[in-house]
């Protein structure tokens, strides 16, 4: 078991190295894993996102901060097209998501699903599938989306469950787990897709305070391993420790983008200053 674990402990860096190779081969875009350009989105006439630009390089951790209702979740959900943006483009490792570049029409279901499989998402409310055991939650997509063989998928799944410290619960059903355990399984499920980027939407907001640490710890270890991640969070200390880049949303506008040191010590805008003061 430990054998397999060490074999796959760095899948993301390998995968992204592959991507870079293919990107260069195709030679169409820069080496950003995620590239968002002039993204806008409205709900019932209310503009929730306006002209957002964001790029995430391979191996980077980008955290999205902002007050409640500022559009953080919407931005994250546009990246894997769970929300359909009104304007703008999103590329995942060089390939446009949502719109077929040749026909300029919405992508077919199949093509969209294939693009989504390059990303993975961890939700605030875990969203584990309650009818499947922990192990099957993790193997479900590798088997039925990526077409992996069951043995292969299970070996892989176990290695990821080991990584998040949940291998001992492989045969448990979700309803028997604590919130922190559920979220760690959800992270293993995301990892098992071997995605190019993992999107986290407030992964610890639904947890009891004493369980927050175990989940943040797992995410921190992933960042150390070089996974590319976009994280929406309200945990400032965590954001500061783990990020390569911090962006701040305010009423649908991206008003600040900086490395964590600069962001937390010398914010450019008054809005961010006030936001940071309120956190203490």
């Amino acid at each position: 078991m430990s054998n397999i674990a060490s074999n796959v402990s760095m899948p993301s860096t390998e995968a992204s190295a592959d991507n870079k190779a293919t990107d260069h081969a195709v030679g169409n875009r820069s080496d950003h894993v995620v590239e968002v350009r002039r993204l806008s989105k409205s709900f019932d006439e209310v503009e929730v996102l306006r002209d957002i630009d964001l790029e995430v390089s391979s191996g980077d951790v980008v955290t999205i901060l902002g007050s409640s209702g500022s559009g953080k979740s919407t931005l994250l959900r546009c990246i894997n097209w769970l929300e359909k943006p009104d304007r703008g483009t999103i590329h995942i490792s060089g390939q446009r998501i949502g719109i077929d570049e040749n026909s300029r029409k919405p992508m077919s279901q199949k093509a969209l699903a294939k693009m989504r499989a390059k990303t993975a998402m961890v939700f605030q409310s875990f969203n584990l599938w309650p009818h499947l055991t922990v192990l099957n939650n993790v193997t479900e997509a590798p088997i039925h989306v990526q077409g992996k063989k069951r043995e292969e998928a299970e070996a892989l799944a176990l290695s990821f469950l080991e990584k998040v410290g949940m291998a001992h619960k492989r045969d448990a059903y979700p309803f028997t787990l604590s919130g922190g355990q559920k979220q760690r399984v959800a992270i293993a499920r995301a990892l098992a897709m071997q995605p190019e980027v993992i999107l986290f939407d407030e992964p610890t907001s639904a947890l009891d305070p004493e369980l927050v640490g175990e989940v943040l710890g797992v995410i921190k270890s992933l960042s150390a391993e070089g996974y590319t991640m976009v994280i929406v969070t309200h945990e400032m200390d965590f954001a500061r420790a783990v990020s390569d880049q911090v962006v701040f949303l305010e009423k649908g506008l991206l008003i600040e983008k900086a490395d964590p040191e600069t962001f937390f010590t010398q914010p450019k805008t008054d809005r961010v200053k006030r936001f940071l003061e309120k956190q203490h």
Partner: protein
Amino acid sequence: MDASAWPMLLEGAWTTLWISGISIAIGIISGLGIALLRIAKIPVLEQCLVLYISLGRATPLVTLTLFIFLTAPSLGLNMDRSLAGILALSLNTTAFNAEVWRGAFNNFSRDQREAAMACGMTSFTCFRRIMLPQMVITSLPGLVNEMSFLIKGSPSIAVIGIVDLTRVTNRISAVTYEPLPPILAAAVLYMAIIGGLIWLQRIAERHANRLAI
């Protein structure tokens, strides 16, 4: 009532059970089909299905059974009694089951569906792997409840001469001139069958509640 009545009663019970069993199976599957067609909201077809469900729920089984059995020959169909009975029972139970299935579909957690989409599942894979297995579990209590209603409605097939567990009591008392004992015996058999279903329903409910959290 002497010992020779019991084999007749059991034969009647068997008739009730096999005709109901086939109708239940048809009703569950076609109920799912109709629920999915309704969810697809195809114009005209949608209105037809709403009409069918409304009529199916309002038409008494006795009336429906007679209707089917008497009308079939005038349409040039040669309908065997059992077939007419099965058709009537399934038409009725399908209308109810369709609503049970549709409720399970409409109440399905959006969050879970999004989790499936985010993993790159197509709607079809998501339906087959994530939704359907859970819809089966959440619908089961309602479906089993419909099964007991079907059994309780099944004596209606007696009107077209099928000798089921209810009608067989007439047969027995025609010989013995003692109607009470066979009717009581039939009542006990029905209570065993339907009691069993109610017990199953409780187990199904316990399972469904476990999914809900």
